[in-house]
């Protein structure tokens, strides 16, 4: 299941050249680019792992791609996203976020229906990958 979250997720997978252009744009706006990865792509999972520290003083996309290559090498089977952070006073939030790496097989989600009082039903989504053995995890 091709998960769709963040920017460009309904488009075909971005090539490295396209990723570079997006990073160039973020840098030209003065945003700090960072890389994060996770095994659990649940839409409510906001805590992805940081790959190295956010690149606040980096002025060239080559540096980000260098880090991305390293991250992909270490976690080939994880979700990796690139974020851009705008530190302008009053904004101070993420302005861009898009997935740049996916597992070869995306396990997707399972829906759990809990029958409550009366005829109430509570729905929970659980990502399959969160239940998989840790061998699937990135080795860093």
């Amino acid at each position, binding site marked *: 299941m091709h998960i769709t979250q963040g920017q460009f997720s309904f488009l075909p997978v971005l090539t490295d050249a396209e990723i570079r252009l997006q990073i160039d744009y973020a840098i030209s706006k003065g945003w700090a680019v960072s890389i994060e990865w996770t095994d659990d792509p649940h839409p409510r999972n906001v805590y992805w792992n940081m790959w*190295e520290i956010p*690149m606040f003083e*980096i*002025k*060239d*996309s*080559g*540096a980000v*791609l260098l*880090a991305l290559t390293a991250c992909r090498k270490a976690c080939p089977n994880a979700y990796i996203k690139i974020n851009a952070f705008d530190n302008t006073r009053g904004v101070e939030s993420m302005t861009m976020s898009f997935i740049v790496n996916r597992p070869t097989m995306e396990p997707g989600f399972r829906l759990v229906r809990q029958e409550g009082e009366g005829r109430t039903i509570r729905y929970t989504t659980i990502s399959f990958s969160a239940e998989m053995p840790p061998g699937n995890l990135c080795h860093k």
Partner: protein
Amino acid sequence: MSQINTQINQTVDLHQILRDANITEVLEQLDLDLVGLAPVKQRIKEIAAFLVVSRARLQLGIESAQPNLHMCFTGNPGTGKTTVAMRMAEMLYRLGYIRKNSVVSVTRDDLVGQYIGHTAPKTKEVLKKAMGGVLFIDEAYYLYRPENERDYGQEAIEILLQVMENNRDDLVVILAGYKDRMDTFFQSNPGMSSRIAHHIDFPDYTTAELLDIATKMVGNMHYQLEEKAFAAMRDYIALRQAQPHFANARSIRNALDRARLRHANRVFDMASEQNVNASITDLSTITEADIHASRVFNQVKKG
């Protein structure tokens, strides 16, 4: 068949590339600003020609890979290695081989860490900052310390090598240092030597060239040397050259800085003792006495 023919008939205007990149201007500026260094200038012209041709080949589609541009500048201190590196960055930038006209200048301390696990992040941080431009590593031979086999320098070299090989289109590395020490460095790190395409040796300046440099420096500082001071400067250079720790143009600049100090002192004394106003000529003329007060002359007298 017809496709091949059109390819063969395609031409590229080299002059257009030269004009677009304003390379001639950079080369002329280099010629004008740097005294002597004829072999270095010759090599840079060759490299410039190579880059222009390589750009043309790229336009015609006969060349696809980025040429190896890593360089090594060897020479004694004060022979203009850093200055040439700046010019080189400008040239590479104008020809589109690097994305920004920047030189990040580092030494061993910026690359090598203090404890286990410190070096890799430190080196990577520097590399990231230099990406898209030129990384200038001054006194690069200090990275390798053969007397200590646990030295972290080796780790920095390995990371550096990897990036030099895999990210050629992102980063140009220029190593600099004394000739003999760099030679030893390359002997013990053959991987580094083979990844460097251009080795440029900076010769020492002759006395006449140094005098030329001194005149230029004085002019840039908006001072002038009076005629006797000029002769004194020539003597000074000849004496200083023979002494140890002579750092070519840098020594000359230091000598001139000290002469300016003595000049200021002299003008100040003159103004307060004689109670006169200093004229523009007073304020901008370095005299024989200012230069002759140097300890270089004293040592000769003692000896």
